[in-house]
Structure formats: C-alpha cells, structure tokens
C-alpha cells in the first residue's frame, strides 16, 4: 500500500500580529513534514523568523529549533523541512509592533 500523504491547510487567510501561531495539528503518524508559508497580502513592517514548535499534548509547546524566514512579499512562499516532531506541530512567530502578515500555512505530511 502507498504510504499516507496528506496536505493540511492549518491557517488560511489569517492575519498574524504580535505572538501568533497556527492551530495545533496532530501528526504523530507522519515521519516527515514540510511546512509552507505563503503571504496572501503584502506584509507590513519588519518580519521576524518563524519557528517550528512541537508538543506532546497540543497544549504545552517547545521550540523545535528550526527557524525560517516568513515570506517578504505577497504570494512569496517559504518553507521548512521537518523530521522527528513527535505528535503535535505548529508554526509560531512573534511579530514586532507594526508588523503584520496574512498567511496561508500548509503542512505536507508523509508516513
């Protein structure tokens, strides 16, 4: 049987300001993931790096260590490859005052 392969849109047209994150996504079945972030509108202000966070229970989060740029222009896309993320995964970012980005965040998971 072909291995499980899933595209999950975990944030669609969400405007991130301040401390923001995608909703917790349970993906313990997957061995690997790629997270894509697309800017759906022209971002405003100085963009920080996004970080991957992981969790045992979807409530208590740790920085996984991966950081990657947020897309700097409308329709630009950035990504991060992931392995060994256990169960819950999310993308988080802490935006400074005046910064805003409207994101489409997708997880591409493979068993």
């Amino acid at each position, binding site marked *: 049987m072909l291995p499980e392969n899933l595209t999950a849109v*975990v944030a669609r047209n969400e405007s991130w300001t301040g401390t923001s994150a995608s909703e917790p996504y*349970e993906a313990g079945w997957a061995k690997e993931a790629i997270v894509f972030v697309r800017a759906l509108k022209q971002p405003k202000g100085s963009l920080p790096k996004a970080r991957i966070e992981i969790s045992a229970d979807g409530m208590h989060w740790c920085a996984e260590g991966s950081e990657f740029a947020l897309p700097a222009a409308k329709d630009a896309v950035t990504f991060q490859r992931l392995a060994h993320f256990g169960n819950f995964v999310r993308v988080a970012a802490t935006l400074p005052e005046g910064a805003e980005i409207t994101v489409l965040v997708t997880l591409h998971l493979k068993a």
Partner: protein
Amino acid sequence: MTQLDDMRRAIREADPQLSRFDPLPRIICLDDFDRGMCGWTQLVGNYEDSLDAMLPGYAQHSQAMLSTLPNWDFGSHGGVDGSYALKIATRPKKGAQNVAIKRLTFRKPGPIRLEAYFTFKPEATDLQLSETDIRSFGFLYDLQIGDSSGPGDRVMPHLRFLNAQDGKHLQKWQFKRKTTPIKPIGNAGKTITHYHLAPDDWEDLPGGEQRLCYNEIPTKVNWHYLRFDFDLGSMQATRFQVNDRVFAMDGFDCIRIPAMKNLWCMLNLCFFAETDTDKRAFAYLDSVCLSGEF
C-alpha cells in the same frame, strides 16, 4: 427476510469491521481512519477573487486530523479499533465551530443510512470534568435531486446534540430548518453563500433529550453509536438512533432552499463540533459507514 438477506447478514457478521454496523445492502463507504482521511476534508466557504469574501463561519474552519486521542495524563486512547480516529477541533473561542466533510453524489434517489461511532471532549486544559465546555456535536447532509428529476430543492438535514449552552448542561438533540439569507459572492454571478450552521434557529427534536456516557475525568472518552436513515426519494428522515435510543422523527424537518444550478445529485456528508467556552472542542469519529438501497 429473504435468503439473500440472510446470506448478506452472515457475511457481514463474520467481518469484525462490518459486524458493528447494520448497513443497507450496498455499502457506499466504510471509513476507518486507520486507512487515512478516507476522503474527509475541511469545509471551505465559497469565495471569488479574494478569500476575504468568505463568511466568517467558514473562515474559522481548519483541517481534520488523524488522531490517536492522545492525553497528557495517560497517553493515546486509540479508536474503537485500531490506533486512529478522525478528529475535528474547533478554535479556543466560545461559539467556535469546525466541520469535516465528505463530498459524494448519489446514483439512485432511494434510502441511505449513515452509521458512525463518535465521541467528544473539550481540550483538557483544566483538571475538571468540563462536561459543559462543549456546546454541540452534530452532523448534516447537503443533498440535491438529480438534474432530470424535475424541480426540487436543495435539502440539508441537520441534527446536533446540544450538550450545553452558556454553562447549562442541556443534553438534547436538535434540528434546523432555517439557514441564513443567501448572499451573492463576487461579481461574476456564479457564486452565492449562506451559513447553515449559524447558531440561531435550532429547534428541539420532540423527545430528543438524552444523557450520554461522559467519563469522569477530562481525558477519558467512550464511543457512541449513531444511525440516521434518510430517503433521497421523498427527501425525508425515516429513523434516528443513538446508542439504545430510537427517536421519533415525525417532528423533524430539514433546511430546504431552491435547487442550485451546479449541485445535481449532490450527496455531501458533514460532522461538526462547537465549543461553549474559550477552550477547543474535539469531536472524534471512528468509523463512518454510509450505505444505500440500490
């Protein structure tokens, strides 16, 4: 019972996966989420030109998950059998909803039967029973007759278990026959929208009070059996059962709106969850069996 019925029953009962269902003769799908998402996806709202055109009710929806029902205090719970169930999670905001959908069409306007094992819990952020944190769990069909079947309606039977509202533990089944006003989307004249899961206009199913098994700490769950029979010919519900209770459906009706020009023979099936507090509501399915008489 004919000999064929007896033979069908014997074959079904020899198969542990099918034996826990009572399907009609043709199984349209048997979705055990140990085989992946089985065609269940998120219900995205209509839009044109910009996603900003999507109604907020739909914009809040996100993708369902393959879940082992993991808990911080005892680990994975697992499904009815196998490791995985489908998890529908709302956002952590009072009144938030989320929906998972499977989109099919039908080939005969006859009886169909939906059966599922379900359970629900709020996110265990408090070490309390939290039995009133979930507002509702429910399901719906989105149906439309075939293009040659003459004028007809788009018909949307909705049923929800209203567990709690504003902290009151209500525990009753409700249905809906009104949706929100239909709004055009964009300028091309091709798209319209309405939010059929709006919080207003739910009506109590007569005799629909039911106390379910809700286990004693915020993480334990028990699976419930659900069966809903519907006739695509008459577009009427014929039977509704949850666990040991069969509910009279005389007082039940559906949302009925004019047929749309591109949805012929549509057979969409949705499950949803709704939270009553600023805490995520989780609804779980394992598994879903849809069958028909054709």
